[in-house]
């Protein structure tokens, strides 16, 4: 049971950052901890994962064409639009009015948006009638508990 006031504390905290406590030293009665001078507080996940919040957006992934890049059906892709796309970037791109996730391959002046699934061929951006890179995927999220993704 969580008391209502604890809920308030959680909500106040949870909205902005998630603190992952680093295993700290307990207060030592005898000798001072040799780690004292090295404590750096907790790891602030969102600031680390999301250095630029106004440019960061989350997308649902649907489909298996990025399997070899470690992105699977029903994962979440976190896109940072302030990152410059380069050779090898995983990007969200609008292709013929559809949003899709692809690997950007640049060779000379030729840009290709490639699948990452050995069963599928690569296709290049200029083959598509219209293609525009929406943003670079900074990381993706995959739940290892069934359907946990939609439960907050």
């Amino acid at each position: 049971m969580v008391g209502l006031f604890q809920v308030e504390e959680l909500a106040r905290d949870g909205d902005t950052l998630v603190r992952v406590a680093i295993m700290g030293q307990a207060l030592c009665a005898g000798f001072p901890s040799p780690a004292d001078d090295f404590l750096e507080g907790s790891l602030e996940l969102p600031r680390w994962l999301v250095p630029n919040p106004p440019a960061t957006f989350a997308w649902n992934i649907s489909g298996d064409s990025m399997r070899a890049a470690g992105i699977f059906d029903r994962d979440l892709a976190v896109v940072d639009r302030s990152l410059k796309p380069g050779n090898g970037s995983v990007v969200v791109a609008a292709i013929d009015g559809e949003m899709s996730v692809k690997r950007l391959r640049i060779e000379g002046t030729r840009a290709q948006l490639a699948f990452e699934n050995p069963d599928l061929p690569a296709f290049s951006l200029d083959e598509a009638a219209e293609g525009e890179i929406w943003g670079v995927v900074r990381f993706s999220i995959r739940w290892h508990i069934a359907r946990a993704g939609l439960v907050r």
Partner: protein
Amino acid sequence: MSRAIALIDGNSFYCSCERVFDPKLARVPVIVLSNNDGCAIARTAEAKALGIKMGDPFFKIREQCRRDGVRVFSSNYTLYGDMSARTNAVYRDFAPRVEIYSIDESFLDLSDVHPDLRIELARDLRATVRAWTGIPTCVGIGPTKTLAKLANHIAKSQPTLDGVCDLTDPVAYDHWLCRIAATEVWGIGRASAAKITAMGVDTVADLRDLDPRPVRKAMTVVGERIIHELRGLSCLPLELVPALRKGCAVTRSFSRRVEDRPTVEQAVAAHASRLGEKLRREGLGTDQLTVFYHTSTHDRGDPMRSVSTTVTLPEATNDSLVLIQAAQLGVARTWREAPGGRPWRYSKAGVITTDLMPLAASPRALIGQLDRERSGPLMAAMDACNSRFGRGTVVPARAGLADKRTWSTKFEMRSPRYTTQVSELPTAHA
């Protein structure tokens, strides 16, 4: 260095927000409708070209929209609010002082930027906002807010300027002021437009060169201030801290006509609860609440009724439960069963307060003191739940659960809340 203020705003902001997440909307006409899908309040250039005007009632243009392939959306204020916060976060990276003027317009203080570099900075700002958030913008720069607003209008209407106009540059100032109609100036409404036309004013330059004293006689100090601002004399400072709110209203049209008392009671309770939420966010309270509900002037031939009553509380509060009681008392005082069995068909209800004060500093009542010590933590817990688990998760029972309210404002064509709801994120195909 001379003072420089920039006004940056989103082009067809609501429509642009929709376009960021749906590539099918690129280059097609898009409009966004007001509450209850009433009228067009945002239009892309393609929609404007089809002759759709600001404020056109949707029922009048519905056929044209279908014929011309206009994509129509209900307003998605959750999305627009989040995108607005993102753009303002980018503005703060570029300017030390930012005044958020409206959901899609902000004033930036660029006085510290060298005059030769202002245009370059504005172009960089536009490009960054576009890249990071997907929102296209225009930037107008001037020595005063009025001139910044005018520069923004010029940047928007002159395609050759590429979205940036700097009126702190004397050459641009002299060039544009005699080419733009005075009616485009910020603060010149229909009434004052007629007055200045009668004074022989045609362009902005004509308006600027008027003698301020007769203008004050005709158009009060507001008119005089416009003249000074056009001359580069700043009369409107940047408001970096929003002024304390003096009044607050929550009013909504029903999605259908309402005839029964329980529904009106539930609606004013929901509005009072929302009012309490807004006041708590700013630490304000009120000791009186005006409740109103009325029939629609569109229902010609039906019996008309408009009711408004003010309920006074023993002391200021922002406790939703107390405000709900006051709202219900307002309905109880004014409810009438229609004579002759033909009920009034109400179209709108709301609650209004006009005497807000900081709650902590408000005087306590000698008699009938409310229990702030208990209600404060209860409301804080309710707000915390709603902030964490989504709005409407915990509601006072009298207000009814949000998805069971049959009278709520319609948003039938609303796009997903792409950026704030885990269950409504956009999908990319892999």
